[in-house]
């Protein structure tokens, strides 16, 4: 008797959940953002961009006719806790796909967690070569940011001697490996290469080495506060008269921290700037402003990337008729989507995209050149 009652109750519960599942619940998409930790300042712009994307996707009918609902979690924490957060969303709240805007350590941890069972779009600029089942990357890679830009800048600014300086971890090292190639190919010379620990906050000895080397261009792969401190000190020593600077992760917040007086000759190569002059980008900025107010967190490549991630996810899901990884992986290659950055095409698990070169002189970015449809050489060609 007892067993029969239990079976009956279970059946009722199952039926109810199935009913409610198909009629009332939206598709939950998990958006993993850094609310705390070193990248914490990008949390708000990421959330906002994702929210805007979800709004647009839902207005256009959602994913395969179903509305989507975003569920956010803070992954600015150590990878251990980041996996907890993702797990909470995945198993606890029934999230069906993930958009990740966070660092590589967390990405590695999440790849180990998901094991290809759930679609996962990784959106920020990073070092390249991340591959796996169900993993799609919209973020810019060093080859995209530098292959066209370095020869252009070297010719435009007559900068032949380059000094490479970055923090000591894999993104700067991988970037510089490629950079050295591009500089050599364009007839230039690398006069110095230096890696700093995260804990250092003063850069005098590095600046002296740059001065002594006679560098005409400095490639900066410092991140966060170190990038700000370095650039402030660089200009303080008057080195901006000696060399131009090119950074691959200098976005609007960092530029604000550096300050107008210290940004002379500071270039940034990125897939997105708030100052991009295209109609799509401008309409995006105005939607953003009207949705979140003019005081909203400044748009930047990291925050905005979540928008691109959701757009790509929606596009692939439309082609695959659902969010099952096996179906998505089969049709993903070649998917295109529209974004304020321009048109993006998924190739080798990564997005071939427009790359913009902006000049930060005067404290606000001005796009001085755009390179269309740059593919990456660090994709998943298999």
């Amino acid at each position: 008797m007892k067993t029969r009652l239990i079976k009956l109750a279970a059946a009722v519960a199952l039926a109810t959940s199935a009913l409610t599942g198909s009629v009332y619940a939206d598709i939950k998409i998990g958006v993993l953002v850094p609310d705390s930790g070193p990248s914490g300042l990008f949390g708000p712009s990421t959330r906002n961009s994702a929210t805007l994307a979800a709004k647009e996707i839902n207005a256009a009918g959602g994913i395969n006719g179903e509305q989507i609902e975003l569920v956010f979690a803070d992954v600015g924490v150590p990878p251990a806790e980041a996996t907890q957060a993702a797990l909470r969303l995945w198993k606890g709240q029934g999230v069906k796909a993930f958009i990740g805007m966070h660092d590589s350590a967390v990405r590695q941890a999440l790849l180990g967690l998901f094991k290809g069972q759930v679609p996962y779009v990784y959106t920020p600029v990073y070092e390249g070569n991340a591959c796996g089942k169900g993993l799609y990357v919209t973020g810019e890679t060093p080859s995209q940011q530098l292959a066209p830009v370095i020869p252009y800048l070297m010719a435009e600014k007559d900068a032949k001697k380059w000094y490479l300086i970055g923090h000591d971890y894999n993104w700067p090292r991988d970037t510089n490996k490629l950079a050295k190639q591009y500089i050599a190919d364009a007839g230039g010379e690398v006069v110095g290469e230096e890696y700093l620990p995260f804990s250092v906050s003063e850069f005098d000895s590095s600046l002296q080495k740059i001065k002594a080397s006679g560098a005409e261009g400095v490639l900066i792969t410092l991140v966060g506060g170190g990038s700000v401190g370095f650039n402030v000190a660089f200009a303080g020593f008057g080195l901006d008269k000696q060399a131009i600077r090119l950074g691959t992760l200098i976005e609007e917040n960092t530029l604000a921290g550096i300050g107008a007086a210290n940004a002379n000759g500071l270039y940034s190569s990125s897939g997105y700037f708030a100052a991009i002059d295209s109609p799509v980008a401008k309409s995006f900025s105005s939607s953003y402003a009207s949705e979140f107010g003019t005081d909203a967190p400044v748009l930047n490549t990291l925050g905005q990337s979540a928008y691109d991630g959701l757009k790509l996810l929606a596009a692939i899901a439309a082609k695959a008729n659902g969010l099952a990884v096996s179906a998505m992986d089969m049709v993903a290659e070649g998917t295109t989507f529209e974004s304020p950055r321009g048109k993006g095409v998924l190739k080798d698990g990564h997005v071939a995209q427009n790359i913009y070169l902006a000049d930060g002189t005067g404290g606000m970015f001005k796009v001085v050149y755009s390179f269309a449809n740059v593919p990456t050489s660090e994709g998943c060609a298999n």
Partner: protein
Amino acid sequence: MSSVLILNILWQISILAMVTIGLGIVFGQLKIMNMAHGELVMIGAYAPVITASLGLPAVLQVPVCIITVGIVALILERTIIRHLYGRPFDSLLATWGVSILLREIVELLFGRGYQSVSSPLPGTMSVLGTDYPAYRIVVIIGVFAFFAILIAWYRRSAIGTEIKAMVENCELAHACGINTSRLSSLCFVFGALTAGIAGMVLAPTIRIEPMMGLDYLIRSFFSLVVGGLGSVEGLMLGVGIIGGLQSALGAAFDQTYGYLGILLLSIFFLWLRPNGIYSSR
């Protein structure tokens, strides 16, 4: 030894001295292991930001800094610090909690982003045959002048003697009519104010965000460990060794070795000479 290296070392020593003197007073004289010291520097660095957001002219940065840091220090002393005199472990832990608190409050008020403060004296000037930022030269001279005056004053002033008496034997000093509780308050607030002013002076040359204080805390502590507590001479010596060593190693090898070098040196001193080189005991 190039003149730029000399100037860099002088600059490092100057800012480290500025930042450390506050901790030297609080740790050396009051025996409070103030883990929130870096946050006091941070709040001082935010003073120009506060001034700008209040719409006040830039000249008022100094009074704004003094008032803000002073109020914070006073509140801390009255509510928390005064229960911690003579309790080194507890002061370490409680002030660590305070540092978290201060960081969170600043983050809630100003957000996590970087603030920028323009230099009051931009441009370089020619010193010792090389171009060096003018602002830094002025600060270096200012710091050395300040310390010269401080050493002279401490040796001769009445308050200096009272502080020494209080540190040696608090009860006896109190019995002699010295208002020890007011003196400790004054010491702590003064120490905090020097940290705040140091932050404000540093602001145009560094990044400004809530987490910036930790690095200064660590280097100040280890400068005091090496140089010895309880005397300004010891402080200068410790700051000279730590600041100089980091710059020299950073210039000779790279920054990683610079930082590791000062950590290893500090461990060495903590182990074998925990009273530092120039201890007054």
